[in-house]
């Protein structure tokens, strides 16, 4: 008599969860390009342009990017070229949808499809996950590749035949190339493979599969080493393994931040861990995955580093999501078929938990997404002044300014506080502050943009030089609102005649102490 809801299969359930993740991400998170997005996509555009026969990029991106520039920036740059920033962000969203699907697949394989639905739902609605899915940076692709490697590890660990373990190596190397931080997750993926192999097939099989995977990894690393620009090793050390922290923060504050952003999922995952500790079969897996969730946050706490912590929390939550799914299924009473009856209403508990997580996640993702200033007004102002291929522009916020104005300017037109140079009439090459002072004196820059935000001291030097020379008109004061507070972007234009500029005093700026 009962027309079972066969139409809504497990796959259908996953589709619904992915639909929520996609619609909520696209519908609620809106902002102009983040500094990192602007940098990577702009770099990618230059690389794509070069590959298509254009001039070589002026910057040596492999030297300092935290991922290899010919992996994500190439993809992002190409997508930006054909569809703009939104298309590049859509790629990240697709990657994160893939991660959610992998959460579901891993949970379904290790537990059941009910736990899989809960795991995917609670992962998809987490704030940092929604955030990473709307950020056109290395992270979404890297996380997807790590998740794929973990998924292959789970499959290889529980499959009858060992050969799928070979795929782990290349995928992990790709993940490392996408972002060097993926190195941190190589051991956990191997640990998952070993522990599941031991559980399902015994020690001998586990050793065999681990050797296969290790060999494939070594081979892939060798191929990568032969293929890439070795300047990437400098970037690997500088950005990841031997990174020097700029904004030092206390460990306790970082720990609290981790709890803020991922605490609920970690707490539910902890319940899942405790539940699984009762049995022998999944005990090791639970310990490994729960521990892996803390790897990236622990490294941040060790380095006192807050930068990118939010994104790296999402990496860890991927590993804890299956445990959380199992815990929610237990909470909803679905681990026992005899009470898995909708009319009893136990499942409402799980829905309520997910909705509460969703409400919090929505708020958190929106907060994270409004952390950087919206530069649409700055972009508008630049578009009223820029001439494609003519004139020089100096910008303190060069990443976003250059990216926003990519349709009306060339790479060579832009300068910033990063390694400024100026060649005088006597062919003397100046660098640093002297270069800036001389360039302003000679009205080298047609346009100057300062925000006194990232390089306040240098910005004051430059502003004072403009006052001294009276070579510039202050033409725009635009609002700048970010997580630090409220400030302004200032735009100057070269005066009609030398010494006749209208910018004559710092009091014309709305600067606060």
């Amino acid at each position, binding site marked *: 008599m009962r027309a079972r809801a066969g*139409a809504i299969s497990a796959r259908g359930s996953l589709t619904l969860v992915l639909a929520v993740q996609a619609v909520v991400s696209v519908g609620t998170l809106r902002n102009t390009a983040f500094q990192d997005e602007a940098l990577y996509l702009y770099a990618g555009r230059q690389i794509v342009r070069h590959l298509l026969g254009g001039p070589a990029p002026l910057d040596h991106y492999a030297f300092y990017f935290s991922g290899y520039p010919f992996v994500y920036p190439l993809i992002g740059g190409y997508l930006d070229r054909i569809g703009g920033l939104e298309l590049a962000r859509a790629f990240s969203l697709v990657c994160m949808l893939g991660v959610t699907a992998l959460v579901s697949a891993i949970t379904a394989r290790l537990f059941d499809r009910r736990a899989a639905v809960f795991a995917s739902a609670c992962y998809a609605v987490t704030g940092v996950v929604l955030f990473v899915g709307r950020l056109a940076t290395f992270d979404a692709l890297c996380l997807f590749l790590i998740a794929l490697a973990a998924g292959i590890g789970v499959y290889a660990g529980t499959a009858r035949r060992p050969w799928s373990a070979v795929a782990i190596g290349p995928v992990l190397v790709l993940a490392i190339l996408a972002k060097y931080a993926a190195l941190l997750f190589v051991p956990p993926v191997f640990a998952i493979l070993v522990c599941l192999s031991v559980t399902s097939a015994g020690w001998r099989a586990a050793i065999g599969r681990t050797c296969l995977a290790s060999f494939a990894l070594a081979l892939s690393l060798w191929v990568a080493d032969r293929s890439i620009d070795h300047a990437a090793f400098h970037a690997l050390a500088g950005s990841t393994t031997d990174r020097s922290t700029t904004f030092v923060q206390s460990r306790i504050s970082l720990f609290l931040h981790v709890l803020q952003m991922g605490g609920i999922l970690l707490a539910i995952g902890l319940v899942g861990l405790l539940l699984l500790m009762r049995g022998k079969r999944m005990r090791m897996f639970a310990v490994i995955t729960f521990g892996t969730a803390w790897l990236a946050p622990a490294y941040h706490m060790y380095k006192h580093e*807050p930068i990118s912590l939010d994104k790296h929390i999402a990496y860890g939550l991927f590993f804890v999501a299956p445990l959380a799914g199992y815990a929610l299924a237990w909470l909803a009473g679905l681990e*026992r078929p005899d009470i898995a*009856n909708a009319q009893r209403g136990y499942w409402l508990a799980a829905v309520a938990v997910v*909705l509460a997580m969703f409400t*919090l996640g929505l708020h958190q993702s929106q*907060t994270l997404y409004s952390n950087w200033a919206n530069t649409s007004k700055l972009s508008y102002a630049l578009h009223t*002044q820029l001439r494609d291929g003519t004139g020089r522009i100096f910008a303190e916020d060069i990443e976003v300014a250059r990216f926003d104005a990519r349709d009306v300017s060339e790479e060579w037109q832009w300068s910033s506080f990063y390694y400024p140079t100026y060649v005088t009439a006597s062919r003397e090459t100046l660098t640093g502050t002297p270069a800036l002072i001389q360039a302003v004196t000679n009205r080298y820059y047609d346009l100057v943009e300062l925000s006194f935000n990232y390089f306040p001291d240098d910005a004051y030097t430059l502003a004072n030089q403009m006052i001294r020379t009276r070579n510039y008109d202050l033409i725009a004061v635009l609002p700048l609102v970010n997580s630090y507070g409220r400030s302004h972007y200032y735009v100057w234009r070269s005066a009609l005649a030398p010494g006749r500029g209208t910018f004559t005093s710092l009091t014309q700026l709305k600067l606060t102490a």
Partner: protein
Amino acid sequence: MALAPPRDGRHQHVASRRKPLVALSRVRLLLWSLRPLWVLLAVTTVVLLPSSVVSLLRISSRDVSLPWRYAGLSPFAFVTASVVACAFASTVLVPRLRRSPEAAPASAPVEFPVPAPDGSSMPPARRPRGAPQPRVAGFALVVAVAWIAYAHPGAPLTLAVLAVGLAMLATTDVDRHQATTMVLALGVGFATVDYVSWRVSVTNWHGWWIAIPILVAEAFGAAHALGFQFTIWPRSTPPLEATLDPTQYPIFVFVPTLNEGVGILRKTLNGCVAARSAYLRRHPHANVSIVVCNDGRAANAPCWRDVDKLVNEFALYGVKGVTRRFGGGAKAGNIEHARQKMHATGDALVVIFDADQIPDRQFLLKTVAPFADASIGWVQTGQYYSNLDNPVARWADDQQSMFYNLLCPGKAALNAAFICGTNVVIRAAALDEIGGLPQDSVTEDFAASIALHPRWRSVFLRDVLAKGLGPLDIPSYLKQQSRWALGTLEVFRRDWRAIILPKKNGLRPGQRVQYLLACTHYLCGLRDLVYMVSPALFIFTGIPAVRRASLSEYLWHFIPYAAMVIVAMWYSARRVTGWRGMVAGFGSFPALVGSLAAVTMRRKASFVVTSKERNGRPSLRYLVVYLLFVVLCVTALGWTTRMNGAERTSLFISVFWIVYSLAMLGAFLGLAYADLHTHAAARVAEPRQSRRERAGRLRPVRVGLGALIVSTVLASVALTHSPTAPAGVARPFVIASDYTATRRFGVSLPIQLLRSEPPQLERSLGIRFSIVGRTQDVIDKFDTGWARQLAAQGARPWITLEFGEFGAGHTAPLSASLPAIYNGLHDRDIRRWATEIRDFGGPVYMTVLKHADKNWSISSGVAHGGIPADVPRAWLHVRSIFRDAGAKNVAWVWAPADPNQDQAFAPPASSIDAVLQSFINYPGARWGNPKTVLDNVSRRYPGKPLFVEVSAAGPAAEKSAWLYRLGSTVATTPQLYALLYHEGGPALLPTPSQQHRWSLASDSQSLMSMRRIVANLDTARGIR
């Protein structure tokens, strides 16, 4: 006979389960004994947790360097965490500890034996180890609701509820219909919480006298929407435990009558006899008595003797009659009187039919069977109308259908289906317990149910087992509604403690909710009144109901809420009822408000039988109220045009509710019209038709609502889309082919002179202008009406397009710069201009970047950051957009200040259709020689048609002389295409005296000179 279920078995079992508690630690025992405290703490958590988490959340990631903030919050967070832990312990852990380890081995589910009515142990309900308590679900839901109420996330929440709910239901054992109902109910629930909490947060408390009534009305509507979903939530009805043989009970069928008449009563008695026969055929040993309770004598009804005769006539079939001599207690008193007379007490079953309710043959067979369960107190069936050819009865039937086919089954699942006064079988012993049917209420049935439900179970059968007569006209319908409202509200006033306050062995929570919903249902009349009056008050007074809310924010919260309520209602009510049930309910608001007033003022109510036949001419007085409110709503809508746009959100909310009220009023007036029409036709009642056929007769409402929707849509379309010519490519305007020996003459004017000045000048000059020019901003619209008017007069428009206005201190906005134009910042507006001009279709002269070679131009190539090379680039960019849009009916007039020296600024000659030479002769300045200038321009732009625009102010003699020289020059300049005089002078905002001084008609001499010029321009034919 023991009717109440024995409880001993359960007590024994609880005692046995307590044994293991001894083995538990004292701490655990203490936790368990302090359970009320944990519940209190849990409630506190619900309040504190969201604020704590959101407070933590709102500290941005950058602020984590400020540990003092965390220090300040940590005690609070600690307390919150402790409370959560305690609540968790009370709701999850401690109840689990109560289970016996012996009774619950690790692998086996714990079993809770349930006592059977005969005292033996029944098969236990399965409650496995590890399964969380229902309280966990409730607790989690309450936390989620509180959280959402705090954060009100808006539309995404609804999406998440639908998707996550459906995804999770897919993992459980539930059929598609139930899954859909549950998911929609969840959607309604969370969307309602989101909307109402947001709505409270933006309420304008300063205008409380408008804001609070509409807020309360909305909250009331939301609460009943939630209550509806709670009622229809799929639940399994508790199974009956058949332990007795109900056919042994004597059955008394009571048919109370007052003044219905023998014609109606005869059919009812026939039905009762048939039902009894069918029952006796199946159960020959049964004892069924049919009793007519005649109250006509006590009430001095004219037909009471006829009723007695009818009873005698039916005596052959065993029908008995009891005629009261003295009244009291209304219908309940009548039944109770007969019940005592006939000794229908103890183990008897009492069946009640109103005089117009004709039972089906199956009635007794179906309704007596459930009494095999000793706990069943009554069996209620639906009340359906047979006279559905009558529109009022049909609408009332739709309203009834919602109640009987949707709500009653849901109430029955919660053991809250109350007695509805007719078509019901009641166990006499239950009535005996409460002293019979209450005689101090006009809704004795409802009052009796509240008293009986704590001890007795009720059953509702959805089958159509009796049919009666619905109200025949709107006044009867309103009286019926008024009586029900009066009775129900009176019961609530009297028995609210039993419904709301906790009481040992009182009503269960689900029953309380259902009785509360039923009692407050009739307040919807007041709600509808508020929906009509409050928006109108806002419109008339300007005091808004909400503050600090944008329209988009309102829609962000309201649309999901409204959509979910409508969709959920539609889904559950499909094939059961329709919108006319809601309209009928809305239309009863005057009666309901009157009843509320009567109950509030404690006026004594009398029992009025719903009329079963029409008498005399229909009264139309009841329509006055509805018409008054229609007038109020229409007036308020008209008044909105006088409001400013400062309170857009409040205005939108108000207009929404007024339109809603108008639609409902219109539909109800449609019913009134149908009622009057039917009354005139006085058709004979037809047999009950199928629901499908009935649904097809919804014409008055459909027509009314359809007309409203269509008119709204048409009005919107008319407002948003002015008639335009078909899109495509305009007919090309090639100025060279238009360039003949005949020269054109016209004016260019500022906007303030555009309508008034040309006719005067035309009269003064005795000609018709063939070109009229104006300057517009790119953000303006192309004035198609003006252009068409010119075309009708044989003239053509000349538009000079600017890209902004000078600000304070004569500063040019950045957006007016030349790079801004060619970098595409104005493309949208330019494209719109192109489209509008293309759609106009007629020839248009267009100038952009006028005087861009000088620093006074807002889009200058020598000032405001512009360089000469920018000018042709911007010019070509604008032209390309027009070309791409297919606006080929534009001739481009290049207008530098000095065409002779514009080489650095000029666009390619191929992109120029004509060149403008301006003469602006200031008083006191040396006025140039027009011949020299025009000769030079002709040499600079050989073959290009020339526009000459003139403006002069100065002594009359000097001005007229210069004009005369100009006339001589233009007459001999072969390239001259048009001569225009610029009225108003060069000032941006000329004063009246400036306008006069710079006017063509500033003096008679100048005017005379211009007449002569015009004559020389070979314009004798006037219009060209």
